[in-house]
């Protein structure tokens, strides 16, 4: 299949950037990233600069490969990352526009790659539990209800790819932060520091310059892990009780 790609090219963070048009011959069996690999092989053989894009595991769990494909982070399919999008969902002659995430808190680096370390700093602010590590404890030492564990796991499925920020008209990171706060707050191990965590992570989120949640829910639509906005309501509750309540 022959495809026309309109790809955002930007030499450096300071470069203004522009769209370049490329023709590529792809097979329907290829993944979207493999199709970009083919394009880059061709560019290299023509002694042109290959397109920079981020990728790592290519099996939908690392959260590295976020691209905005025809206006949708991770492309048109529900609940899949860019690496799980296959060319069989496109037809011969399609025009595909590929852009990087656009958000002030995710500054552009090169071509389709942006700097998402703001998410790392939010995690560093409180997205963990403070326990002495050692030998793993017995699996059933802390009984947790199945439903509770399932909710926590749904939130923990967040791979921190940043598609929520890319999809949000306000570039808000609330879905990401709420997923991280929720998956720990729902478990007994995380409850201990829940108040401090909610406040510290929201403070860092605000400091990074993310926007505010208008409950547009575009984040949930585009999330490759289908994280629900009910987590955002939980974060709002956690933050409210942490701000207005007191430990003692």
């Amino acid at each position, binding site marked *: 299949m022959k495809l026309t790609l309109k790809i955002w090219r930007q030499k450096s963070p300071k470069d203004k950037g522009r769209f370049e048009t490329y023709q590529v011959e792809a097979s329907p069996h290829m993944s979207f990233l493999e199709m970009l690999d083919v394009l880059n092989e061709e560019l290299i053989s023509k002694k042109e600069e290959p397109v920079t894009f981020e990728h790592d595991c290519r099996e939908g769990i690392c959260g590295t490969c976020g691209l905005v494909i025809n206006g949708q982070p991770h492309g048109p399919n529900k609940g899949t990352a860019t690496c799980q999008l296959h060319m069989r969902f496109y037809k011969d002659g399609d025009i595909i526009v590929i852009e990087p995430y656009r958000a002030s808190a995710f500054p552009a680096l090169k071509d389709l790659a942006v700097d998402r370390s703001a998410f790392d700093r939010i995690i560093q602010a409180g997205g963990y539990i403070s326990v002495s590590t050692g030998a793993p404890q017995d699996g059933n030492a802390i009984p947790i209800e199945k439903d509770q564990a399932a909710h926590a796991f749904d939130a923990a499925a967040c791979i921190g790819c940043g598609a929520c920020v890319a999809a949000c008209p306000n570039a808000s990171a609330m879905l990401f932060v709420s997923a991280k706060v929720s998956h720990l707050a729902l478990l007994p191990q995380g409850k201990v520091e829940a108040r401090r965590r909610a406040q510290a992570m929201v403070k860092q989120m605000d400091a990074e310059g993310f926007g*505010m949640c208008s*409950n547009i829910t575009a984040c949930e639509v585009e999330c490759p892990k289908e994280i629900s906005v009910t987590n955002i*309501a939980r974060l709002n509750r956690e933050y409210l009780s942490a701000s207005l309540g007191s430990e003692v």
Partner: protein
Amino acid sequence: MSWFSNFLTSSIGRKMVMSLTGIFLILFLVVHLVGNLQLLYDDGGEKFNLYAKFMTTNPLIKTTSYLLYAFILIHAVQGWLLWRKNRQARGPQGYAVKTTKSVGTNSFAASNMGWLGTIIFIFLAIHLYQFWLQMKLGHLPMAIYDGQEVKDLYAIVSVAYENVGFVIFYVVSMIVIAFHLLHGFQSAFQTLGINHRKYTPFIKGVGKIYAILIPLGFAIIPVYMYLFH
């Protein structure tokens, strides 16, 4: 009090201010509509004028009205500040291809709350100048009911609604308010952290009905007065 100011200036705190002031304004709309529906009585405005006098003289209502002015301003100013902050967060470079989808809310309304709010604010300025300010400061004709002299607000309302331009302006503004409510009603609850398997579908259902019925009720008044009075 630093914990309180920290809360109010945080992103979530600011959204909660929007939510709480919004809920107050939502409640106000019902009271306002119930009062205004008295314009539909074919009594030359007696019921409406007596109601208008009560609303501008009763101390409890007057106190509440100051709260209302404050909440309108807080909701508008805070909304504008959030809109500006969110634009900065999105950055100068937009997407070449733009799609914003939503689940469980109207995506047009959700993505354009700032613009809808701006139109509502302009509407409010005109609306308040036209009726509220005239009632407070203007020289209104007087009507006499049972020997009691009352400002004839009904007279300027019915004159205004003889003008088809005003009728269209009011109806269009009500459509804008309907869209603002369509997202705002349920969004206010989500912001307060109220998202529940049992109650959220109910809140969303009531929100939709509310967003249609209340503006419709307001819109009927100028249309009816234009056509039948």
